[in-house]
């Protein structure tokens, strides 16, 4: 038997790792990967709570499915943006995309 808090702990750790990736990596693709990690952490939480609290409705799983959808949409659009930026500036480092300043 695995108690609930373990899942929550793993999810929190994964979320923190993803957050660190998002905040620290220079490469936009890597940032996107960090976001994916964070979304997965959320999904773990959703499913864990679903399993332990409300296994007789579908709410947790349904939400997880919507998170999948959002993740897919985010990846598609984000990567398209990255490719477009790279084509123009030959770089995907976020510091190089800082036109909107001062």
């Amino acid at each position: 038997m695995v108690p609930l808090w373990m899942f929550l702990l793993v999810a929190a750790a994964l979320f923190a790792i993803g957050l660190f990736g998002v905040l620290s990596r220079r490469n936009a693709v890597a940032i996107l990967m960090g976001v994916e990690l964070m979304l997965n952490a959320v999904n773990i939480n959703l499913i864990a709570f679903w399993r332990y609290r409300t296994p007789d409705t579908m709410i947790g799983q349904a939400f997880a499915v919507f998170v999948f959808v959002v993740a897919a949409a985010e990846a598609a659009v984000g990567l398209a943006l990255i490719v477009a930026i790279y084509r123009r500036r030959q770089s995907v480092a976020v510091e190089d995309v800082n036109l909107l300043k001062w």
Partner: protein
Amino acid sequence: MIDWTNANYLPWLIPVPPLLAAALIFLVTNRSWWLTTTTALVATITSWVMATIMLLRAIGVAFGEALDGEAFGSTAPWMDLGSTQFQIGVLVDPLTTAMLFMVPLAILMIMIYSVGYMAHDPRRERFFGYMSLFAGAMLLLVVADNLLLLFIGWEVMGFCSYSLIGFWFEKESAHRAGVKAFMTTRVADVIMLLGIAYLYAETGTLSFREIFFNEALLAGLAAKPAIIFGGLSAAGLIGVFLVIGTIGKSAQFPLHVWLPDAMEGPTPVSAMIHAAAMVSAGVYMIIRMYPLLEAGADPHHGVYSAPLLLMAYVGAFTALFSAVIAVAQNDIKRVLAYSTISQLGFMMAALGIGAYIAAAFHLITHGIFKALLFMSSGAVIHAMEHGEHHAHEHGHHVHNAFGGHGRFDPQDMRNMGGLKGRIPVTWFGFLTGGLALAGFPLFTAGFWSKDEIFAEAWHLGFGEGFGPAMFVFVLLALAAFLTAFYTMRQLAMTFAGEPRTEAAAQASLGGPKTVVSTFMQGPLIVLGVAALVAGYIGVPQDFPLFGWLFSGNGNPFHDFVGGTLPHHPPTLAFNVVPVLFSFVVALGGLYVGYRVYWRRPLAAGQPDPTQLALDRISPYLWQWMSHKFYVDELYQRVFVQPSQWLSEVLTSKIIDRIVIDGILHTIAHVAGWIGELFKRFNRVVIDGVGDGIPQAIGAFAGWFRRVQTGNVQQYLLMAVLAALVIFLSAAGLLVRISPTTVLIALAALVVIIVVLNLIGRVWGGIAE
């Protein structure tokens, strides 16, 4: 879930298909002619079918669910107005039922006809879009159960008439006519809206049945004095406002001027405006609102209210006035336009003396035969244009028969003649329509409806001795005589004798199997038959022979439509005098016309015999008549030119340039002088201080703005920090420990990080 098979909900759907079709045509199908016509026709047919189901249901044929004082309809909440809720709804009562017979039929016929008529126009898809919208608006108006919904349909029609009259907007005259129609009706509409607003303010409802079945309310309105025009009661003032709206919409004197100009639109539009929709809407609205107009009065016993008198006098005058004008017109559609005004005058006058069922009857029959007449005239014009083309191709020089050297005018009757054998179906249509218009006794629809108006007017005027009814009867009789006369004139000039131009000689609709002729002639036949038989639904019960044939159990139309309102109007006893009168005026007019125009058809270039006859009395008579008594010119002088003068001379030159500019210039000079003084002061004192502060701020900002690095990640970091702080405070509440110390510690940490980071950034920015 709403059960659409229930007759109470079906009326909602009747206006929907054309409105939907309009949207579809404008948004989707307007590249394809085929799709557009299909859409429009399918929508119209659907509406017609639904209206017919409603009709059958209402009169109890086939479904056994007849209306008997009750009505079909349903309401839904529309908008909340403070404490009350405005209900929107539909209503099918006997009057609506009568309209549901005429309106969708006429619209359907016009639509079919338009397919042929517009087949070669470059903007034909747009045309169908407007027409569908027009039809939808009219149907909406017909099924509306309250004045506001009715007004919506009314206004949409106003817009459509504007865009359709100006449909050929390349023509200067067309777009002017469109604007004129819009402006003229706008004047009336505004007044009508005032009436509606007043009504709502007084009663708190606009629903027809809520108002008319409430005796106390009507009596109260009739007793209460109006807010302005002290002599009037509230009901009277509202009525007058509404009647003025109708005067605009139904083109009564003095707001009739837009209707003849509306002939600039394509002919189906004219048919739509004159027969099915626009002008009928005005009269329909009056019939709808009749109890309100009648409140406090009883025309059947000689008590008239202000709106009734207004209608009686205006209507009767208009009927005669425009009939006189129509005699002197040469444009085939213009004659019909004035005849419409005249016939609407009949209805108004009938309403004014209390014969509202007769008016409704005439509205129905007139709708049918006027649609027929307009479509026939359109066919004539089409044939003339075709003939002109043909003549051109064969090298003939086409010229106007009356010696004009301008563009050939296919609408001028003087250019026609002898078309009888060339376009026989059109001839049939025009003949039946014309005879109905003239009120040819016993066999046309127009006779029966007109006769009923005469009977009522005679009874009230000479039987009971009421002045307004007497006035109405005399004027209407004269107008009817003139109607028959100019109808005969038109028939003769168009169809009789020999062709007066090459174009007329070559006129045809382009072969029996073409799109044009098929689609244009079909509706003519249908409506032609209808124009002959439609009158038999309202034959007076004790009319010799015919009454026995068609009205064995009482006058069906009278009894049915009479059920609209709580008080059934009395059925008049048969009186031979007014019937003889109708015989005499109709046949007499036709005979005179026949003598003058048919027996000796006009030759090319020959002046009009009526003109010759009138010139013997006074040379100005004909001139005034053919110039429509100079009403347009009068308006030009009285309204247009003065306002132009006002704006040009008074406002622009005197007030603007001299008075206002003068004052302003003076002030400006003074101000300039003072300003100079201040400037000196400024330079020395204020600039020293004022420049110093902004420069200091600017320097600081220039230094500080480097916080804004443009680096998304950094922003994100700050956002997460902020989220952490919020999260922290929420967490403190959640676990119910005393969080103060933790909170303060972490907040301090956060602040330190932020400050450190800021300093680092800023320092980095400066170092760069």
